[in-house]
């Protein structure tokens, strides 16, 4: 008898707890900056392995272009680029990870597109890399243009809009093709290298890294066509405009620093600069930092810690690296590229 009575009590308690849980209001969204400061580090979602953008070096330290964007944010907030915990994320879970608050910022070669911006509860920072989907073929096929690929088999990875772009490009040209989709990037590369597919398609920066992995990179050639626009932009949750501003202006600091000729090496000299905009950027004058809820020296800290845009590019992606990419559209607007920072005033 006592046993059944205690069982009844448990059930009743469970029921009350259930009702309480349903009626309890969910915790209100706290400002991301406060959460991050309290935690003492930023949680940054990155690619598990993507040469040039995010990879672990032989000592296990994460390096790469996307990684440096998060380190710049860390410098802006904590005056220290290493207060970041990197969370490797697959393409399938990356947006959910931002939405659910598992990461504070996603710096992971994400394409900024209308439907993602409008329907996923996400906000995108400035474009950090202008990419585009390309196609790569073995040199021996003697293909000169994507329009010659009628009836070819094309291998690709899911998790992006790659498949849709391919269809958008080939359908108006009435070109039929066979698309083979792989979940696993090793299987994908092997299928291409072994000739199961005549071509592979992905972002051009990604194709460059596949080519870099091949036994003999000169056996493969990236076709001239860029079949889609892939502006890669870091991503944050939509409900915190201040956090998004911090992201945006950290990226603009990198771009503006290159424009003004400020580098990691000479940033200290620029503290004495007569240029009022440089004075505001570096926190010598004005209170731009405070407007974001940051230290006034945040701009100085960013450049001192990671350098300007050009330094990020050359260190991770440029001609001296394994990827060997040229700046292309990722050049300052003053040099015919697309990089443009709004004014610091």
């Amino acid at each position, binding site marked *: 008898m006592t046993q059944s009575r205690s069982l009844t009590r448990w059930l009743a308690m469970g029921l009350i707890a*259930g009702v309480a849980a*349903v009626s309890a209001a969910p915790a209100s969204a706290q400002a991301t900056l406060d959460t991050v400061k309290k935690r003492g580090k930023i949680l940054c979602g990155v690619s598990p392995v993507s040469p040039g953008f995010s990879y672990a070096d032989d000592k296990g330290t994460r390096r790469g272009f996307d990684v440096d964007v998060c380190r710049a944010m860390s410098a802006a907030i904590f005056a220290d680029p290493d207060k970041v915990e990197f969370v490797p994320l697959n393409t399938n879970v990356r*947006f959910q990870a931002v939405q659910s608050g598992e990461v504070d910022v996603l710096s992971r070669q994400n394409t900024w597109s209308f439907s993602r911006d409008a329907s996923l509860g996400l906000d995108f920072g400035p474009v950090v890399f202008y990419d585009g989907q390309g196609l790569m073929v073995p040199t021996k096929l003697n293909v000169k243009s994507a329009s010659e690929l009628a009836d070819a088999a094309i291998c690709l990875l899911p998790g992006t809009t790659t*498949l849709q772009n391919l269809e958008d490009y080939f359908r108006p040209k009435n070109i039929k093709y066979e698309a083979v989709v792989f*979940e696993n990037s090793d299987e994908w590369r092997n299928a291409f290298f072994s000739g199961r597919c005549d071509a592979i398609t992905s972002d051009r920066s990604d194709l460059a890294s596949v080519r870099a992995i091949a036994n003999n990179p000169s056996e493969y050639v990236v076709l001239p066509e860029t079949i889609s626009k892939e502006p890669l932009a870091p991503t944050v949750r939509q*409900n915190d405009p201040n956090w998004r501003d911090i992201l945006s202006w950290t990226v603009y600091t990198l771009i503006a620093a290159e424009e003004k000729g400020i580098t990691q090496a000479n940033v200290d000299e620029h503290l004495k600069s007569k240029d009022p905009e440089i004075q505001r950027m570096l926190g010598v004058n004005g209170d731009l930092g405070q407007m974001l809820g940051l230290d006034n020296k945040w701009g100085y800290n960013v450049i001192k810690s990671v350098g300007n845009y050009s330094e990020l590019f050359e260190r991770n992606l440029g001609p001296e690296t394994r990827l060997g990419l040229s700046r292309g559209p990722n050049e300052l607007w003053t040099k015919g590229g697309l990089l443009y920072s709004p004014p610091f005033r």
Partner: protein
Amino acid sequence: MRADSMSGTSLLYNLRFRAILYQVLAVGSIVLLGLYLFSNVSQKLAEQNIATGFDYLSREAGFVISQTMIDYKPTDTYARAILAGIVNTVWVSAWSVVLASILGLVVGIARLSSNPLLSLLAFLYVEALRNVPLLLYLFLWYALIVTGLPAVREAWEVLPHVFVSNSGLTVPSLIWTRAHTVIFAALVLGGVLAVAVHRRMTAERIRTGKARTTWPWVAFALLIPPVLAFLILQPEFTVSLPEKGRFRLTGGSQLTPEFTALLVGLALSASAGIAEIVRSGILSVRKGQWEASRALGLRDGLTMRLVVLPQALRVIIPPLTSSYLSLFKNSSLAIAIGYPDLVMVSNTTMNQTGQAIEGIAIFMLVYLGLSIAISLFMNWYNSRVALKER
């Protein structure tokens, strides 16, 4: 009845009342928990401005699926794309079940053979296949096909117009028209008729005791409908021959390496388990049944077919159901080697629309529904072969 038996406290001591109370509480808590989760999810999604609902199913999918069993174009809707994925899943699972059952039966019987070499080989087959994860075997079969066979431009022409390459097996194919479908349906009808005729004549023989040759009548019943349909419709037989194009073989029908690797991987792995189930079933039939059957003068093959297997089936069917179910669910590993099954199509859909919860809900429901269908069918079959207790 004493007065206090109606009071509140003693109602609590009423066993029947308690039993009902517990059930109401248990069901109530589960429903409340479900409601809580659902309302929480909807509220969070709305707060985060994430689109919800199933409206996207009627939008244009805009991506190709390389091999489909139903007509599908990229201009079709997401719903159609998901349907194509479901059909692909069912198609590869169904063939794997057939292949695995045949292999499993043969290997299971071989395992009990009195020939030591044969039983050793069957033993090795079973142990090699069931002790390594299926995913590794899928990678192995796929790698063997893709790296072991020549590229499509150097394809082997094993028979005239039959090509083998790392893009699969390509054979000449008939260009299928509606007339062919009708003739095929007529053939199926003929089959049904033939079975009916055969049964009828067997019953007649048992009733009258007179033996008559049945086969001409059966063959007649089988062939009449398709021949009639053929004569009426006069279909054209156009054959599409595979030819070497610039990149691929064009024309003909193709068995792709992705499908083949998945079929072989699923069927072999499941057949090892089925072989053990068959063995246990056969061993469950008592020795006396064999002896009695031999005493009646039946040969070993007939004993197996007429006496032992029907009894063994009662032990075999229930675990076999589980084998079929796990084979069906394992087909979702297809995505690793590029076969466009339901999971792959759902993934692409989720990535394009960003509506992951709906996508996952759809494919969980489909797997659940089809698994239950398989279970129900197998239970029905099980009750048919079960011991009839009179």
